[in-house]
């Protein structure tokens, strides 16, 4: 594929990816008794230089998906392509040159740095592993520390001497060491204080501008992810509910789940908070061992009807590349609903029923 009208060709493509974890039981022979459907038929792509936010509550499969992308877990079904090459089953040797290009920053800056190693060793490790000569490592580490806003004298300190925000900067420096193209950020700021979150987000933003990085930014709510993302994907119980250009998701959420997630974020403004009508979604996400039939969100959805229990909604394509898997979409006019099409990224098990114009509700908000 050459550069199309959509800009650059995708750096990463995830094609109908499934990750199921078997639950085994038995005395002599382990028998598979059930499966956890952690990621259940997810398709998306990441363009070079883009940031995709991946949002969902605990247990929705967002971390499993991001780890599968890094080839830290093997997929059950489907394909992952990096620059067009299928890496789904690539072995250690085949992955080695690609590891330089894809790096990860972890959620917990207290657990993801080896407490017995000095900062210089931590950041230098990927360089040494990839054959950088010993005497060239230190200058590069100093440069990286400087780049992420730490003093280069900090080279000889241990992780415990740093605060949470500083540690996360060390994690970022380590991920940058090999000049990757893709960085998977797994809730990089959720363990940090608000004022420090902003510092790290701004740093990530600057680094992306300078180095043309591609980010997959995983988050558990919609507040922080907005500031970094070009597009946002909302996940629920292993499936994509909605994929949207970032700003549009906040002004025009189509899926009722997205709208519920937005309504649940408290607004730090007392007057507006008092004026706002709050819709509190009842219940909790169901068990991914035995997901509900039809639309996985239907047991908690205020708009659910009979069809939602029976037919899994396909990802319908709306204007601006906005996708949503819902039979009764919000913020969509009947005219818009009448021209939607089933997107090829829809799960294979999804039905062909597109939201009927009569189901569309042009009124804003839920």
């Amino acid at each position, binding site marked *: 594929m050459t550069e199309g009208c959509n800009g650059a060709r995708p750096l990463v493509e995830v094609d109908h990816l499934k990750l199921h974890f078997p639950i085994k039981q038995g005395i002599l022979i382990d028998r598979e008794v059930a499966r956890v459907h952690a990621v259940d038929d997810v398709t998306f792509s990441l363009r070079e230089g883009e940031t995709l936010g991946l949002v969902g*509550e*605990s247990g929705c499969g967002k971390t499993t998906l991001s780890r599968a992308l890094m080839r830290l877990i093997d997929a059950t079904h489907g394909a992952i392509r990096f620059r067009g090459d299928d890496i789904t089953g690539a072995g250690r040797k085949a992955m080695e040159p690609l590891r330089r290009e894809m790096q990860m920053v972890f959620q917990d800056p207290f657990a993801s740095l080896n407490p017995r190693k000095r900062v210089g060793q931590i950041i230098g490790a990927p360089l040494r592993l990839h054959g950088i000569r010993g005497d060239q490592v230190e200058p590069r580490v100093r440069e990286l520390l400087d780049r992420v806003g730490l003093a280069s004298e900090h080279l000889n300190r241990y992780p415990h001497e740093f*605060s*949470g*925000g*500083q540690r996360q900067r060390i994690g970022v420096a380590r991920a940058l060491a090999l000049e990757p193209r893709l960085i998977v950020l797994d809730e990089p700021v959720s363990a940090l*204080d*608000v*004022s*420090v*979150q*902003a*510092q790290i*987000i*701004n740093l990530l*933003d600057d680094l992306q501008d300078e180095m043309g990085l591609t980010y997959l930014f995983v988050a*558990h*709510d*919609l*507040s*922080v992810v*907005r*500031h970094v993302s070009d597009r946002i994907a909302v996940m629920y119980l292993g499936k994509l509910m909605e994929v949207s250009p*970032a*700003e549009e998701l*906040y002004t025009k959420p189509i899926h009722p789940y997205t709208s*519920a*997630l*937005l*309504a*649940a*974020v*408290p*607004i*730090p*403004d*007392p*007057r*507006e*908070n008092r004026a706002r009508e*709050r819709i*509190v*979604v*009842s219940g*909790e996400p169901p068990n991914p061992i035995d997901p509900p039939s039809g639309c996985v969100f239907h047991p908690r959805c205020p708009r659910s009807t009979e069809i939602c229990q029976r037919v899994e909604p396909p990802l319908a394509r709306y204007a601006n590349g906005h996708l949503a898997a819902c039979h009764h979409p919000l913020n969509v006019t009947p005219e818009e609903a009448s021209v939607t099409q089933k997107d090829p990224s829809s799960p294979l098990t999804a039905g062909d029923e597109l939201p009927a114009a009569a189901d569309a509700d042009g009124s804003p908000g839920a």
Partner: protein
Amino acid sequence: MSERLLEVDELRVSFATEEGVVQAVDGVTFELDAGEVLAVVGESGCGKSVTAMTLMGLTRSPNARFGGSARYQGRDLVTASDEELQQVRGAEISMIFQDPMTSLNPVMRIGDQIVEQIQEHQGIPDAQARERSIELLERVGIPRARDRVDSYPFEFSGGMRQRVMIALALSCDPSILIADEPTTALDVTIQAQILERVRELREQTGAAVILVTHDLGVVADIADRIAVMYAGRIVEQGTLDEIFYDPQHPYTWGLLGSITRVDRPRPERLPAIAGLPPSLAARPEGCHFRPRCPHEFDKCPEVPPLESRLDDKPGHKDRCWLTPEEKRRTREVEPGEIGLGSKEGVGAA
């Protein structure tokens, strides 16, 4: 006028550590009236949790030193004996802890944990205590409470465990509920459910709530008054609207400015407070926020007292030497937005 429940006066808590004396709480003064929600806000390590835990006597240890007082119904909770505290704790003042995963006893049925607490304080028979615990679980929104009262904590999700924690805290109809980051470990949809529940319970029982949190969104949702803490001191306190719409301390500006909002167009850059909070073992002289403050001037090496600097708002107090006029000029107020500002008065970094 509602009844005054708690008066905390110049509370000081320090711990002797290998790195020297850590002054975790340094002269904290506040009052709590019946039925109100007081939010104590600040970043990690500002002393907000230590303040809350000290009221429950949970910071007592050989290396801790206390000063000041916390008067509850004629008793001083700081100097009270362990026996006296035992009577107050769980019965009149109870606490909801941050982490619902580790705050319940994993090898005890949840119903038994509630029964134990009820019987510790009220001599009622087993069957009656059990009925009461089922009633409490229903009240905090646990479905099929009668079937689930004999479950173990591991059989519950995080949100459900936090509900059990709230049921436990409410078991003896306390007059003060201290909630230390009660929703931080939970997903947003569950957080909204829990906050809704706390709001209802306050209306039904008239209990006062001290909410310790770093999330100003949660505060805007539920608090009546706010105390902002920084490095062991309260730097500003006032009503919800005073703090949100006329903040006086530059640290409060920074805090308010750095929150992300889902209901507004996104800013080009997120305003951040430069630098890091000081170590409590080596705090700067004078105003502790001085090294991070873009508006520092020659008066700041002297500790500003916590007092009202606005003529018409005696309850709105702050610790900053700038005059209210200077503050209104230097802080950045876009319509409805607040930022720390910088020396030049241009956009916050």
